[in-house]
C-alpha cells in the first residue's frame, strides 16, 4: 500500500521529464495551430483588437470562389507557381541524389571527398545561396554568360525571362539541397544485400533490370521518406524566388508563400485573416498530397 503511493509519486515526478518540452510545444505549436484556424475565420486586425470581426468562412469563400476578388487571383497565381516549382524540382531532387549515391556507392578513390563536396552547399543559408547564384547568373558579368559568349553564344537573362527563371531557381535548389537526400540514399544502398545482385547476375540480368528489380524495391522506405519530405519542402519554397527573382518576370515565380507573407505582414494593408486562410488551404493541400504519395508508393512496393 505505502509502496505504491511512493511509486505513483515517483511516476508523477518522472513526468517532469517531458513537461518542459510539452509546455513549450503546446504554446508554440498547438495553440498557434488552433489560433490560426480562428484567425482565418475573422476579419482580423493585427493591432487594433476592437476592429476584429467574425466573418465565418468569408475569407475562404473570397479566396476560393470569388473570381472578382483580388485575393482569389493572388491565391491561384501563387498556388500555380508553387505547383510549377514542385513539379519541376521534386523529380530532380530525387533523381540527382540517387544518381550521385549510385556513383559514390561504387566507392572510387576519394569518394568521401566527393560526398563532402556534394553535401557542403546544404549548409549554406538561403541568403548566401542566392548571393552566390545571382553572381554566377549575372547577365553581364556572371561566369555562366561570360562562358557562353566566349564560345559565341548569346547571353541569357537567367533571372529575368522564362523559362530561364524557373531553370535558374530549380538549379540553385538542386545545388543547395541534394546533399541530405544523397547521404540517405548512399546509406540505404549499403543495406541491400549484395547476394541479391549476385543472384541476379547469375540469371543474366542487365544493369537496368538490377536497378529496377533490386535497388528500387530495396529502398522503398527511403524513397517514400525522401519523396514526401522533398515535396513538403518544395511546397514551402520562399527564399529562392523572394531573393533571386523577386517573383518576376511578370509575377511568374511569385510563389504562394510570398503572397502569404506579403498579405500578412506587408506594408500597406496587412490582412492576417486572408493570409492565414491561404496558409490553412496550402497546409491542407500539402497534407493531402503527402498522404496520396505514400499510398501510391506503398502500392508500387
Amino acid at each position, binding site marked *: 500500500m505505502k509502496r505504491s503511493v511512493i511509486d505513483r509519486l515517483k511516476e508523477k515526478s518522472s513526468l517532469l521529464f517531458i513537461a518542459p518540452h510539452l509546455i513549450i510545444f503546446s504554446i508554440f505549436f498547438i495553440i498557434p495551430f488552433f489560433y490560426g484556424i480562428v484567425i482565418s475565420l475573422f476579419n482580423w486586425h*493585427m493591432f487594433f483588437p476592437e476592429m476584429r470581426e467574425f466573418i465565418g468562412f468569408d475569407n475562404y469563400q473570397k479566396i476560393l470562389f470569388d473570381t472578382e476578388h483580388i485575393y482569389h487571383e493572388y491565391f491561384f497565381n501563387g498556388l500555380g507557381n508553387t505547383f510549377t516549382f514542385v513539379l519541376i524540382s521534386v523529380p530532380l531532387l530525387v533523381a540527382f541524389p540517387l544518381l550521385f549515391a549510385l556513383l559514390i556507392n561504387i566507392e572510387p578513390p576519394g569518394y568521401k571527398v566527393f560526398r563532402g563536396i556534394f553535401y557542403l552547399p546544404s549548409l549554406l543559408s538561403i541568403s548566401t545561396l542566392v548571393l552566390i547564384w545571382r553572381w554566377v547568373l549575372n547577365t553581364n558579368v556572371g561566369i555562366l554568360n561570360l562562358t557562353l559568349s566566349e564560345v559565341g553564344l548569346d547571353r541569357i537573362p537567367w533571372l*529575368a525571362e522564362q523559362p530561364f527563371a524557373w531553370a535558374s531557381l530549380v538549379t540553385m535548389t538542386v545545388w543547395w539541397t541534394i546533399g541530405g537526400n544523397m547521404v540517405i540514399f548512399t546509406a540505404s544502398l549499403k543495406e541491400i544485400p549484395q547476394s541479391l545482385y549476385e543472384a541476379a547476375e547469375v540469371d543474366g540480368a542487365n544493369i537496368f533490370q538490377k536497378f529496377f528489380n533490386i535497388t528500387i524495391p530495396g529502398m522503398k522506405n527511403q524513397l517514400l521518406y525522401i519523396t514526401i519530405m522533398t515535396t513538403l519542402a518544395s511546397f514551402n519554397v520562399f527564399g529562392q524566388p523572394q531573393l533571386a527573382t523577386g517573383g*518576376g*518576370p*511578370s509575377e511568374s515565380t511569385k510563389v504562394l508563400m510570398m503572397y502569404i507573407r506579403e498579405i500578412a*505582414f506587408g506594408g500597406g494593408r496587412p490582412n492576417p485573416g486572408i493570409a492565414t486562410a491561404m496558409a490553412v488551404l496550402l497546409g491542407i493541400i500539402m497534407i493531402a498530397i503527402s498522404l496520396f504519395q505514400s499510398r501510391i508508393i506503398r502500392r508500387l512496393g
Partner: protein
Amino acid sequence: MKKILLIVLTLFAAVGLTACGGGGDNNNDDDYLVTITFWNIFTGPDGEEMINLVNDFNAANEGVYRVNTQTIPSNDFYEKLNTVVPQGQGPDVAIMHLDQLARYAQLGLLTSFDDLASDLDLDETNYIEAVWDAGIYESKRYAVPLDVHPIGLYYNQDILDAYDVEVPTTFDELIAACEILNDDTIDQWCLPLSNVWPSQLLFQASLYQHGGMDLDEDGLYPAYNTQNGYDALNVFHELIFTHGVSPVNTTVDEDLALFRQGKAAFHINGIWMLNGIIDSGINFGTASIATLFGDTPAVWAGSHNFVMPRPAKVNEDKQEAIVAFITYVSENSLRWANAGQIPANLTVLDSAEYQALPYHSTFVDIDDIMFPSLSPYFQDSFEPIFSRVTDAMNDPNADIQALLDEAELEGTQRLNEALGN
C-alpha cells in the same frame, strides 16, 4: 556531478544571454538627458552621412539630447512600422517617403506636427513649395521634408565627345543620338534600360510628360489606362524593340553596371546614385529628363520626410528633442546634398556652396518636379502597373493596351478591397 554543473552552467549562460537581450538600455547618463530613437532608411552611402549628422548633433548637444539611430531598409521599414507602432514600440522619429505619408497618416500611425506642444520653428517659405505641401494630410501636417530625389540623365562625356553628339532633351533627339551611339562592334549601348527597378519611375515620368495622371482627381481609382498612358508606356517598348537603344532583358542595376563600365552613353537613374557613379571614375555629366519622353515638362521625384510615429504616450521632452534634431539636420542639409540628394531647404539650395556642386544644378529644374498623387490609396491603385512596365520592356510582342487593362483591373480590385467594398 561535473556533468550536472556543466548543464546548469550552460543553462545559466543561455538564460543570461536571453536576459541581456531583454533590457537594452544600458546608458546610465544623468536624468536630464533626453534620448530619442530615430529610424532611417538610408542603406547606401547616404546612410553614412546621416550617421555622421546624427553623431555631430549628439556631440553638439552633449548632456541635453541624444539621438540613437537605426538603419532599416525601406521595404522592411514599412512592414515594421505597421507592427511596432500600434504596440507603442515605434521610434520617436523616422524617415518616410512622400508617397507613403498619406497612407500611414490615414492608418493613424503618425503624430501630426500641429499637435506639438513646442513650436516647430520652421518657415514654410524656406522649403520647396510642392514638397512642403506634400506633408499635409486632411489639413494637418505630418511630415517635415528633408530632401527631394528626382531621376535624371547621366551621360558619358567621353563617348559623346568621340561621336560629337549633344545631350538630347527630346525623344526625337534621343532617337537621333542613339542611332549614332549604338555600336555593336565595340559592345557600346546608347541607353541601357532596366526592365525592373527603376523602370516604374521612368514610366511615371513619361506618364506625366504625356499629360497623363496616375490616379483620378479624387486620388482613388487608376487613371493611367488612357491614350496618354498608352503612349507613355509604349515609349519604352519602342525604345527597346524598335530603336534598340538597350540590350533586351536588362535587369536591375545591369543598366548601371554598363554605364559604370563605360559601355553606355546614357543612364537614367535617381540622384541617389550620384556617388556610385562618381566612384566608377567615368567622365560624366548630368541633365534633366523633363521632356525626354513627352512634351509636358515633368520629372518624377520622391522625397524623404521626417515623421513622428504615434508614441504610446506623448512626452514633451522628447518632442523638444525631435524638433531640435529635425531643425539641425535641415540646416545642415548641404552635407546631405553631398551624400547625393537635393535638400528641400531653399536657403541651402540658394547657397553658393550648393550652386557650386558640379552635378546637382544640371540634374533637374526644381520647377519641373512632379510628385505622385498624395493619396492613401496610391500603392493600391498604382502599384499593379509596375510589373506591366516590366512586361512591356521584356516582351517584343507585348500588347500594351492589354497590359494597361490588366493593371487597371488589378488596381481597381485592390482599391475596392482597401475601401472595404
